[in-house]
């Protein structure tokens, strides 16, 4: 099946982003395609390469970047939500790209399943 994943909350503050990551891994392991992961609202904060968690904690941005590059998944960070929160081309990490909200509509049209991770 073709999955779309929508993430509405930022890293560390909520578990939403961890859950989305675990779900994405499990979906890939079962042989599904992930058409796109769309980062929206505070979800855009997952994409900053300035993130420096403590050494004994998970590095959420790096987890995501590895998932994107290893599996060639399209990761889109909503431009309007990103700008409002200080995320721009200079700080976005490898594997993420900034894009318009229309790419979420495209995903809703294209995906067989759209799963939302939220507060």
């Amino acid at each position, binding site marked *: 099946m073709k999955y*779309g994943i*929508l993430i*509405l909350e930022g890293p560390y503050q909520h578990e939403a982003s961890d859950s989305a990551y675990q779900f994405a891994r499990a979906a890939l392991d079962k042989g599904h395609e992930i058409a796109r992961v769309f980062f*929206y*609202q505070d979800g855009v904060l997952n994409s900053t390469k300035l993130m420096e968690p403590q050494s004994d904690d998970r590095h959420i941005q790096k987890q995501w970047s590895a998932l994107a590059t290893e599996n060639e998944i399209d990761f889109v960070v909503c431009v*309007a*939500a990103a700008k409002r929160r200080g995320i721009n081309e200079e700080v976005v990490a490898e594997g993420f790209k900034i894009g318009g*909200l*229309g790419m*979420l*509509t495209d995903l*809703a*049209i294209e*995906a067989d*399943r*759209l799963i*939302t991770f*939220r*507060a």
Partner: protein
Amino acid sequence: MNEAAQKLMIVFRTAPYGTIYSYEGLENVVMMAAYEQDLTVLFIDDGVLSLKKGMDSSAFGIKDFSPTFKALEPVYDVEKIFIDKASLESRGLSLDELIIQPELIDSDQVEKLMEEQRNFMMF
């Protein structure tokens, strides 16, 4: 609506202003409307509060986005707009206190509307 139009829905279930969910749901409705899909908008639970008349954001600088809700049908051609009757009633509101008058539905219609869609998002 284009020929290959897909059924899509945005569900509002969160109160406006306290969090950005309602605002971002509305941004999506506007975007999807531009794609000429078969679009449905549904208000349930605290989502019905997004439609309350009389919002005044002058004290705050927080954007009052109710004009965009008002424009959904006349400007953006969104015609399928529904509201859960029980959610409205439990909040002591009637349709004439809202800036638009969506079609009232019973709660048992909500999941049916969700099932009908290719995909939906809930804010």
